[in-house]
């Protein structure tokens, strides 16, 4: 109430009546405030009147307005004086005329007098009752059109009366000494009165509200609210609820949400009201784009036990709407850029057809089982998973609502549900089902109304387009278009134009399609509908992306559309998972190929200078079938894993987390760049002219940024750094437009590019070189091209082979891109905290794995070495970065730096000998290929001489031969014994052992004379060797070359024991077996010398 607040005397602080002019205690004159003075005046005026006059004046304050008839009611007499009295009342300056013959006190006066009336509640109540009956009578006798006016009065008096009676009854109950008998009855009676009045009010309000007579509804509400402070709390709650609804209807969303939230905080709310409230709040929040919050509100409604079925269905449908908006706001399915070059296109197609197999199988089974899953081609792209998940959620909720509505046979709502279901079916590629459903919808009783029918037709047309039945779709859309134009429904008109454009586009009518889209854009802009505009922009963008020859106007339209919105395709919190997954994918495939593909080539035998025979250096060869199959297997395995993952996301990804992490949105308006964060709140609003710097940190393979690994930043005055993730839909367009608009607005900008184009950088060159080298060496060892070892100097070849097989040219850049660069960049921009720990962990696992398995995970030792080093490096880089992040703690920082470097140094030391060993091995191979047996054998022996802690190679024979060479008789003896006694070694190894052993013994005897028995044992050894070699040839299924080498060794053995004819026989067999000119030459010479 205006001006009736108590105030204090300025000198003695005595509390004063609002109207006093002097302080009753100290006599200080009080300057009246305007409203005090007003109250004083009215009091004086009334005091100067005759008591009856004053009383009538007071009573006139009770109704909102009065005329002669109401004056009669107030005076309780209809004596013909009313008109006259009314005229006198109207003469006062505080009475204003509000209509023909209708008057009211000015608000301040009326409120003041009403305040007085509250001290006389019983009299007030009697007058209220009289007014109530009067209005009831008056309504009964007036024309229909005015009924609402009177009803409004009646209802508000009804509420007042019910409230006051219930209050007075409650007071009465308090005062009574024995409340037991009568109270409950009286009280419930009062309550039912309130409820009845409330019901009456609600019916009246709802009637106006549902007929969209908003002003009338508002007037009804205002009338009821007017004296809300004397209403019972229950009624007040309801009024606040309706106030919220009113605000919502008038699109005052914030005010509406505020009303509802005040109520929701109350815990003693009428359960019926609670359900209505939660549902309405959800509706407002959907409209306001607070989808996450809206879902929570609907769920609150659903959790209420008292919820009615229809309300339950509404809540489900509300949740479905919210999910749908979340999904639709992202545009639609991800559209990959069409490849420019035919080869790339073909390659992409092949890759896609292989990768799709597992997804295809899984999805087909699921679809057959009746599950709602999008087509495999859609699910193949992870960018769509989230969207599919949300659509699924939306569909589930729609189905829940659908079941209820079906049970209640609520045709209108059934159609609503069906439209949503059809849309989702079309999106999911279940076109036939969609068409079926649409036909069913069109036949429902409520559907003949043209407006509703038109909407269903648009939905059906979408399905028809998917079915490629363009003619019928276009026809249907044109029909719908006329209806929407007639009722001037801009939103649906824009929607029809979008769909129509699509139909025209797909049926090849480019020109018309473009025109239609443009018309749609104009319409959408006209009604300010964001969703309609974005839908069309989405269609245009996918058009541009999916066809090589799109109309050039598209780019112009897309460039010039004043306001555009870009939504991230993935919530940011899920991004690191994608990054890690994508980063690991290619290295994993490569490593798997490296594990599976190589196999050891057949070993031959080389003869050292002192006739000792030892296996030649082997080399890993890569049979073509393995080269193809292993990545393929990996691809399929990844495909299976990927599909399963996708389906898990589709079925089980918790929506709660998603709800709290809406995808972020960037809106580009003609003046500003606005960013909404993951909770849907505006976090940036940058005037174009305020942009100071654009930083891009894109990672591209060639030219196109990799979505998951790219991002840009916009710096501006007054606002924090704004980040634009590469995962944002149409990322390139966003950046282009931001740059363009800022420039056009005259911003003083600098640019910083931290881009890397993987393949076009120096590192990319390294990778190319590595790939080339590896392919050359593989081709060469596989014999697809002439063996490189034949032409190149052995040392050079050895280095090449080591570099090629170690894969450092591939691993290095990969580590740079996936670990070093992101970690350092992220350090700069303070990004994800978990990355360094993750890197450190992966590095650590690799390291430990290689240590405990002694590098046996991959076959090629030098590759094991480089992987191990890579692991150690990644680990130390990770902990170094962790150290950097700890920031100021210096000791920790130096500590991790030292540990990191120490580790790396240690690892280098550990592998040093292995690297040398592998070098000799490779060189020995080259010598052997070049026919330089002696040098080959020497390198073999050098290889053996390298002791190494890790990455062992089994080289027992070689070790024994080394001992023989060094004339370490005892050691040699022990090792040969060990070999021949171990059944685990194959016949060939044992044969070589016996043969070499014999030669060793012979050499020993030559040096220090030997006993007869010892010489006999030597002969025995050679005999065993011969026997074993025969065995080996049959067992081994050896190829002719190897057989030749073995036969040659056998021959040599016969020579040693003096059985020349046998030697000649073996050597002749060897000569027949080999086709190598050098070997033939050698054997022939040997034979010649024997025959001589």
């Amino acid at each position, binding site marked *: 109430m205006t001006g009736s607040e108590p105030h204090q005397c300025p000198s003695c602080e005595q509390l004063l009546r609002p109207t006093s002019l002097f302080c009753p205690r100290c006599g200080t004159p009080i300057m*009246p405030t*305007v409203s005090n*003075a*007003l109250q004083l*005046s*009215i009091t*004086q*005026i009334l005091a*100067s009147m*005759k*008591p*009856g*006059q004053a*009383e*009538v004046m007071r009573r006139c304050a009770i109704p*909102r*307005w009065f005329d002669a008839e109401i004056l009669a009611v107030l*005076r309780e007499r209809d004596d013909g*004086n009313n008109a006259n*009295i009314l005229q*006198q009342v*109207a*003469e*006062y*300056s*505080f*009475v*204003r005329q*509000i*209509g023909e013959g*209708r*008057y*009211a006190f*000015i*608000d*301040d006066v009326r409120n003041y007098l009403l305040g007085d009336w509250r001290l006389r509640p019983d009299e007030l109540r009697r007058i209220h009752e009289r007014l109530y009956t009067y209005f009831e009578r008056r309504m009964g006798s007036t024309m229909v*059109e005015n009924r*609402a*006016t009177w009803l409004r009065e009646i209802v508000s008096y009804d509420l007042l009366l019910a409230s006051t009676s219930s209050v007075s009854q409650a007071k009465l109950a308090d005062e009574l000494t024995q409340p037991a008998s009568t109270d409950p009855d009286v009280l419930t009676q009062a309550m039912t009165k309130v409820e009845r009045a409330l019901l009456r009010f609600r019916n009246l309000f709802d009637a106006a509200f549902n*007929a*969209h*007579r*908003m*002003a*009338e509804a*508002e*007037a009804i509400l205002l009338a009821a609210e007017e004296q809300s402070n004397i209403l019972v709390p229950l009624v007040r709650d309801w009024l606040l609820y309706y106030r919220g609804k*009113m605000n919502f209807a*008038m699109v005052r969303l914030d005010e509406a949400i505020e009303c509802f939230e005040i109520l929701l905080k109350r815990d003693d709310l009428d359960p019926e009201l609670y359900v209505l409230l939660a549902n309405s709040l959800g509706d407002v929040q959907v409209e306001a784009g607070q989808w996450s919050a809206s879902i929570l509100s609907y769920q609150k409604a659903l959790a209420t036990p008292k919820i009615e079925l229809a309300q339950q269905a509404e809540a489900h449908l509300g949740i479905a709407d919210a999910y749908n908006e979340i999904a639709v706001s992202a545009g639609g399915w991800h559209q990959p850029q069409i490849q420019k070059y035919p080869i790339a296109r073909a390659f992409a197609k092949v890759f896609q057809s292989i990768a799709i197999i597992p997804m295809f199988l899984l999805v087909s089974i699921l679809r057959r089982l009746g599950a709602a899953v999008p087509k495999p081609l859609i699910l193949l792209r992870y960018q769509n998973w989230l969207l599919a998940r949300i659509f699924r959620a939306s569909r589930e909720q729609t189905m829940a609502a659908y079941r209820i509505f079906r049970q209640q046979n609520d045709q209108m709502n059934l159609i609503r549900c069906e439209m949503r279901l059809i849309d989702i079916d079309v999106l999911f590629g279940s076109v036939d089902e969609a068409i079926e459903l649409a036909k069913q919808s069109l036949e429902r009783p409520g559907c*003949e*109304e*043209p*407006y509703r029918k038109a909407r269903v037709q648009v939905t059906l047309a979408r399905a028809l387009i998917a079915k490629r039945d363009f003619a019928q779709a276009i026809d249907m859309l044109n*029909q719908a278009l*006329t*209806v929407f134009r*007639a*009722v*001037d*429904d801009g939103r649906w008109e824009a929607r029809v134009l979008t769909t129509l454009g699509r139909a025209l586009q797909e049926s090849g009518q480019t020109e018309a399609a473009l025109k239609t889209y443009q018309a749609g854009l104009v319409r959408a802009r006209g009604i300010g509908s964001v969703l309609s505009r974005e839908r069309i922009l989405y269609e245009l963008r996918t058009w541009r992306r999916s066809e090589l020859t799109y109309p050039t106007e598209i780019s112009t339209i897309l460039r010039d559309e004043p306001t555009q919105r870009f939504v991230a395709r993935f919530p940011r919190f899920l991004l690191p998972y994608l990054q890690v997954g994508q980063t690991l994918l290619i290295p994993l495939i490569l490593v798997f190929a490296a594990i599976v593909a190589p196999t050891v080539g057949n070993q031959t035998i080389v003869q050292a200078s002192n006739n000792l025979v030892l296996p030649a250096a082997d080399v890993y060869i890569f049979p073509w079938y393995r080269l193809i199959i292993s990545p393929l297997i990996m691809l399929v395995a990844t495909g299976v894993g990927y599909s399963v993952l996708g389906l898990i996301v589709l079925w089980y990804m918790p929506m709660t987390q998603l709800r709290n992490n809406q995808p972020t949105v960037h809106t580009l308006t003609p003046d500003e760049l606005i960013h909404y964060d993951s909770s849907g709140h505006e976090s940036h609003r940058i005037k174009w002219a305020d942009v100071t710097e654009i930083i891009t940190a894109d990672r591209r393979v060639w030219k196109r940024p990799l979505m998951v690994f790219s991002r840009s930043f916009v710096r501006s005055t007054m606002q924090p750094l704004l980040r634009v993730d590469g995962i944002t839909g149409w990322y390139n367009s966003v950046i282009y437009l931001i740059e363009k608009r800022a420039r056009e607005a005259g911003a003083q900008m600098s640019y910083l590019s931290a881009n890397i184009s993987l393949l076009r950088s120096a590192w990319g060159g390294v990778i190319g070189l590595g790939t080339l080298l590896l392919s050359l060496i593989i081709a060469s060892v596989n014999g697809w091209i002439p063996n490189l070892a034949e032409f190149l100097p052995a040392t050079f070849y050895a280095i090449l082979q080591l570099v090629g097989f170690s894969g450092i040219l591939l691993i290095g850049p990969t580590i740079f891109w996936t670990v070093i660069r992101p970690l350092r960049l992220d350090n700069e921009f303070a990004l994800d905290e978990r990355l360094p720990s993750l890197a450190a962990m992966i590095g650590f696992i690799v390291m430990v794995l290689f240590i405990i398995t002694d590098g046996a995970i991959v076959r090629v030792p030098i590759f094991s070495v480089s992987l191990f080093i890579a692991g150690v490096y990644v680990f130390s880089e990770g902990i170094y970065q962790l150290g950097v992040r700890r920031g100021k703690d210096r000791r920790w920082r130096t500590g991790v730096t030292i540990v990191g470097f120490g580790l790396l140094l240690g690892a280098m030391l550990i592998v040093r000998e292995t690297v040398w060993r592998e070098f000799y091995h490779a060189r020995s191979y080259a010598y052997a290929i070049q026919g330089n047996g002696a040098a080959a054998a020497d390198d073999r022996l050098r290889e053996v001489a390298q002791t190494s802690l890790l990455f062992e190679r089994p080289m027992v024979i070689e070790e024994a031969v080394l001992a023989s060479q060094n004339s370490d008789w005892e050691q040699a003896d022990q090792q040969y014994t060990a070999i021949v006694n171990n059944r685990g070694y194959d016949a060939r190894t044992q044969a070589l052992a016996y043969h070499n052993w014999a030669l060793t013994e012979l050499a020993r005897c030559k040096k220090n004379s030997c006993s007869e028995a010892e010489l006999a044992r030597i002969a025995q050894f050679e005999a065993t060797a011969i026997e074993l070699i025969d065995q080996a040839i049959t067992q081994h299924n050896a190829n002719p070359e190897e057989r030749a080498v073995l036969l040659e060794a056998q021959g040599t053995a016969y020579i040693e024991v003096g059985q020349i004819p046998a030697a000649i026989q073996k050597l002749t067999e060897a000569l027949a077996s080999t086709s190598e000119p050098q070997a033939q030459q050698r054997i022939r010479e040997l034979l010649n010398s024997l025959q001589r």
Partner: protein
Amino acid sequence: MQSIDKLFVNREKQTAGFIKMLQGQTPKRIMLIEASGGLGKSWTVEFMRVECQRRGIPNTEIDFADSIVFDFLALLRRARDGFGIAAFNLFTQAINEVTQPTVRIETGAANTNAINNLLGQSNTFSGSNVNVGEVIAGNVIKDNSFVINADNAVVRQALQDRLSGAFFACLASLTSQGPLCFFFDTYDKVTVEAEAWLMGHLLPQIRDGLITNVVVVIAGRSVPKLDNQWDHLIARTGLDLLSEPHVKEYLVQRRGLNDDPNVIKALFQGSTGQPQLLAMLADNILRSQASGGDDDWL
């Protein structure tokens, strides 16, 4: 109701500005009077209206303090009645067309013609063929006084847009004959629908030059918030407390009190020059001087 003709004092600044607007001597077309209660907004508006009447300028006043429910239709009807119903036949006709008991789009196998007929394409009422409704007298069409009933918000919106279109068409032909004036009073109690029409139709049309020769006066404890792109069109004003000479003029010349400087001074101080209060203090004094010969009312 006290007579404004006899009692009005001061407010020269506002009325002068208003007259300049009427005569087109200023580019301003919208006057916003924002002042707290009892300062004389309604009286100022009323005074301007009288001025219009004197000059024969069609005008209409909408006071949101009225207990009438100012929905869209009521608002337009009130405006029409203020300007003179004769000029608004096309509008009335449109009302009669759309305010059938309930407007629903009729069934028909995609017979969009039917819809067009029902809703009326804009060209239906751009012609002068008057054939719907009843003719009261001469060329004036009777308003059937129905309300808009639509079972769909969009349809309702469409109908409203159509009515508004018809209204402005009539208004345009009226303004070609001379200026006219809208008065909105007690804007702090504006209904949502009325506000939507005002802010969505009337004012933008004036701003965009679609209707000319129209002056709008809006008074209230609060007035529409319009951003600076309206500045060239808007005259903003408040209302001052009355000065002592004006108080004296009011009390002595208008209310007929004795010219006793002490009394005048006391009343000036007591009322601080606030017109409402001043008027009530005068009431009070005049009452106490009166013989009390009135009969008692109860």
